[in-house]
């Protein structure tokens, strides 16, 4: 055991301890105590993550001097053998390596800020303690996912984050829409879990092991394709990519900090982590990896288009999340794992920031989420306004904000991989335009100008401030991170993250853009992003350009490309019809009727037979005698 392994165990177990303490304490604990227990436990986890990071960093420094790629794959620490069946055994082990420490830092760092923010946001809710137990449990599950030292533990974390996501989406269980959204998210995620499990079965059948090392084994092409497809199914479901994306917008029914933590910063990006973590198998099945990139490109366009017509502030940001995860899929799909992970990190900063500023607005307007009612909010909430602006600029990718540094390398990295690379490149640039348009549509509709009647009527501050200090401090910290968080990497001149991840997930040579490509792409995408902002300004602020009235297109977008409609027709309606048919034709006549029929038959038989039971001794004797005589006769005849 070295420092980094202590750090990793501390990081994993602190939130679990917090959860258990809150659950055991129940209503004995004061509400504030539960809230601070959860917050402290996540910050302790962050300290553990830093400890682990420093440990890995020193190994990195000592082993990997120079520019040559080094073979350090971090350290596996095994607690005990968890499952052992014949030759197949799975230990309970944690993996501390550059990739997992990076995720640990993001999850516990951003997570800590968001749990702190929840203290103010959930103040006065009836079930605060349950909320904080769930959210600490989520952080534990997510850390389990990223620290798990083999595929099975990864799947355990994968399932647990699905569970805690379900619990938190349906947190306000008296709202039918929240319960429905929670079920939808759970079912769609279960689909992904199932495909992942199938992929694991193939791996076990082939190598009888589930350690990450087995992924380097040479599989036959069918096997590797099937495994990669199964893993991709899990990634697509968890990260809300087409065709399993419809649960994410509905998941906005949960409390806003949950949307910020689970449905923007951490859980939904687990698919990107999965692809980066299992990249050897995706590289064997290059077609599937490119399909992942294609799915990302398609999702970033579709989600960007849908975001243009949404009117709920959280749903706009949710579609933007889908779109940004599309970029990450594009990045890791073409083989630029460092690009995808870097965008994952900056996205966690600025998207959590956007959700939390939206949460400040919603909180101050007594739960209102419709952006058409929020006009002129910036006048009364200047702090929220400027923080949101920083997040929005980071999202669009305007230098020097974080998104600029992480998004452009992804777009630039598609140029060398073949003709479809150009398609991806075009998608990425169109996506950049859409990002500028929908983000600043939100901005111009909500913040500038004089406060509208709704805002004047419903705005209420928190003791003269825009929110409790527990809400404002994390927003401030994330604003700083969304502004400068991207500066740690500026490829190709300055690439610490690529170097950091190189021992675990070295980017494919094709996916490393040349200096010219980077420069050109950066300039083009910034210009395109600014064009998007300008169009949004002209359309939604100055009203110089009318919104093109194409009812058919508008209808398609408002119905989210009819995915929900389609799934209802394909899965829900046939299932209900089958159920009704079986209920009508089988359950009613057969299952429900058998019991009463049996009972009635028994009663009728009994009614007949009981006449024999006269109660007269002599009748019985007569029967016995007659029976004996009959037997004697039978013997005689038989003889």
């Amino acid at each position, binding site marked *: 055991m070295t420092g980094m392994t202590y750090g990793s165990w501390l990081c994993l177990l602190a939130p679990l301890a917090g959860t258990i303490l809150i659950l055991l304490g129940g209503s004995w604990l004061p509400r504030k105590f539960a809230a601070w227990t959860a917050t402290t436990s996540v910050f302790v986890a962050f300290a553990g993550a830093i400890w682990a990071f420093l440990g890995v960093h020193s190994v990195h420094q000592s082993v990997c001097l120079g520019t040559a790629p080094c073979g350090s794959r971090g350290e596996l620490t095994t607690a005990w053998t968890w499952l052992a069946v014949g030759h197949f055994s799975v230990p309970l082990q944690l993996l501390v390596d550059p990739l997992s420490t990076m995720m640990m830092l993001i999850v516990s760092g951003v997570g800590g800020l968001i749990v702190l923010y929840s203290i103010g946001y959930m103040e006065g809710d009836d079930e605060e303690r349950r909320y904080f137990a769930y959210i600490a449990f989520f952080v534990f599950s997510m850390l389990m996912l990223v620290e798990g030292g083999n595929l099975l533990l990864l799947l355990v974390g994968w399932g647990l984050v699905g569970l805690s996501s379900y619990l938190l989406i349906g947190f306000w269980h008296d709202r039918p829409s929240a319960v429905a959204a929670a079920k939808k998210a759970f079912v769609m995620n279960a689909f992904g879990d199932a495909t992942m499990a199938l992929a694991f079965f193939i791996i076990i059948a082939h190598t009888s092991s589930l350690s990450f090392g087995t992924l380097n084994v040479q599989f036959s092409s069918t096997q590797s394709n099937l495994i990669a497809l199964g893993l991709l199914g899990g990634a697509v479901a968890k990260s809300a990519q087409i065709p399993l994306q419809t649960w994410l917008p509905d998941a906005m029914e949960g409390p806003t900090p949950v949307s910020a933590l689970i449905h923007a910063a951490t859980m939904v990006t687990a698919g990107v982590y999965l692809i980066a973590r299992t990249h050897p198998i995706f590289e064997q099945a290059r077609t599937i990896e490119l399909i992942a990139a294609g799915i990302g490109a398609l999702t970033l366009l579709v989600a960007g288009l849908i975001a243009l017509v949404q009117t709920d502030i959280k749903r706009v940001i949710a579609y933007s999340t889908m779109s940004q995860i599309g970029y990450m899929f594009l990045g890791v799909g073409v083989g630029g794992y460092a690009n995808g992970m870097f965008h994952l990190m900056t996205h966690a900063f600025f998207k959590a920031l956007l959700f939390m500023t939206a949460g400040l607005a919603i909180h101050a307007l007594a739960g209102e989420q419709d952006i058409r009612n929020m006009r002129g909010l910036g006048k009364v909430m200047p702090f929220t306004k400027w923080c949101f602006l920083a997040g929005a600029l980071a999202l669009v990718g305007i230098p020097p904000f974080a998104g600029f540094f992480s998004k452009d390398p992804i777009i630039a990295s598609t140029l060398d991989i073949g003709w479809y690379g150009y398609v991806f490149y075009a998608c990425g640039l169109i996506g950049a335009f859409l990002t500028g348009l929908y983000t600043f549509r939100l901005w111009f509709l909500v913040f500038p100008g004089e406060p509208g009647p709704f805002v004047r009527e419903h705005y209420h501050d928190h003791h003269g401030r825009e929110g409790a200090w527990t809400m404002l401090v994390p927003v401030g910290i994330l604003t700083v991170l969304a502004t400068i968080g991207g500066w740690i990497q500026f490829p190709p001149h300055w690439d610490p993250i690529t170097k950091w991840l190189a021992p675990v997930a070295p980017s494919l040579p094709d996916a490393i853009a040349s200096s010219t490509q980077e420069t050109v792409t950066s300039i083009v995408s910034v210009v395109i992003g600014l064009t998007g902002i300008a169009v949004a300004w002209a359309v939604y602020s100055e009203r110089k350009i009318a919104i093109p009235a194409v009812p058919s297109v508008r209808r398609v977008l408002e119905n989210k490309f009819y995915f929900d409609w389609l799934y209802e027709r394909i899965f829900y309606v046939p299932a209900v019809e089958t159920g009704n048919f079986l209920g009508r034709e089988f359950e009613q006549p057969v299952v429900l009727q058998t019991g009463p029929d049996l009972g009635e038959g028994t009663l009728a038989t009994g009614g007949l037979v009981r006449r024999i039971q006269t109660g*007269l001794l*002599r009748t019985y*004797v007569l029967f016995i005698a007659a029976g004996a005589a009959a037997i004697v006769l039978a013997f005689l005849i038989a003889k």
Partner: protein
Amino acid sequence: MLGPDVAWYVALSGVLFGIGALGVLIRRNTLVVLLSLELMLNAGNLSLIALSRHFHNGAGQIFALAVMAVAASEVCVGLGLVVALNRRNLSLDVDTLSELRG
């Protein structure tokens, strides 16, 4: 071989059994019914012993002993019931004791 042929014994046993059975069927007095039952059991014993001697096989006599034991226990229970009925001043007529009619 001394004495009558085994057929006579069997015939006598049959006659005794018939008388017993008729007694159980026809008579209403519980005591007489019990008596008739004893007659039937002893008819059985008679044929068992007769045939045992005829076939030089001791098993029949052992059976007869077992039947006697059963008969003794049966009489115990039967007489016990009769005493119990009498104590409650209930009729000893078997036809009136028909509460178990279905």
